[in-house]
């Protein structure tokens, strides 16, 4: 119940930054915030109070947390960083081409 509210707040903050701001770098920051909200919710929802999921030699096994959502989150973090780098490269080239990084002022985009 608690983690659902936090997810909604962070996701809507990122969504607001993606739609309402006209600075292109703010849009990339909003995209990063949305992804971070999803990862935090996945880890927090699958926590049943167990231990870290690594076996220790010579001791009996307690109750482990779920390893599958953690593996998916790890993949997602790396892909999020790669996507942000590619988007920033395109913004650098767009800045050289038209001289501005506001969404309203780029010519040919608002016809």
């Amino acid at each position: 119940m608690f983690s659902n509210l936090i997810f909604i707040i962070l996701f809507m903050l990122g969504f607001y930054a993606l739609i309402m701001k006209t600075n292109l770098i703010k849009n990339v920051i909003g995209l990063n915030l949305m992804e971070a909200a999803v990862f935090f919710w996945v880890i927090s929802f699958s926590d049943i109070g167990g231990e870290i999921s690594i076996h220790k030699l010579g001791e009996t096994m307690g109750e482990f947390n779920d390893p599958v959502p953690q593996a998916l989150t790890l993949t997602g973090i790396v892909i999020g960083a790669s996507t942000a780098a590619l988007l920033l490269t395109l913004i650098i080239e767009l800045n050289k081409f038209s001289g501005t990084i506001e969404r309203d002022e780029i010519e040919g985009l608002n016809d």
Partner: protein
Amino acid sequence: MAVLEIILIVFLIFSAVMAVRFDEELISIIFLSIFSLILTSLYLLHKAADVALAEAVIGAGLNTAIFMSAISQIRHGDSD
């Protein structure tokens, strides 16, 4: 442990709001780096060690460096 989690979540939402608010991009990226750092300790509180290590290295290290170099090329580009 519940009190620590509530304090960290309050700081998380505060830094996210500050990252969205400002117009100058340098301040936004510093708040994004603080957001990533607090998220690392929250992952560790939920007993996910691999994810915390990955978020610490990628989120607080590489992402901030790439954003800073992109902003330096946009705002002060070819100024030599």
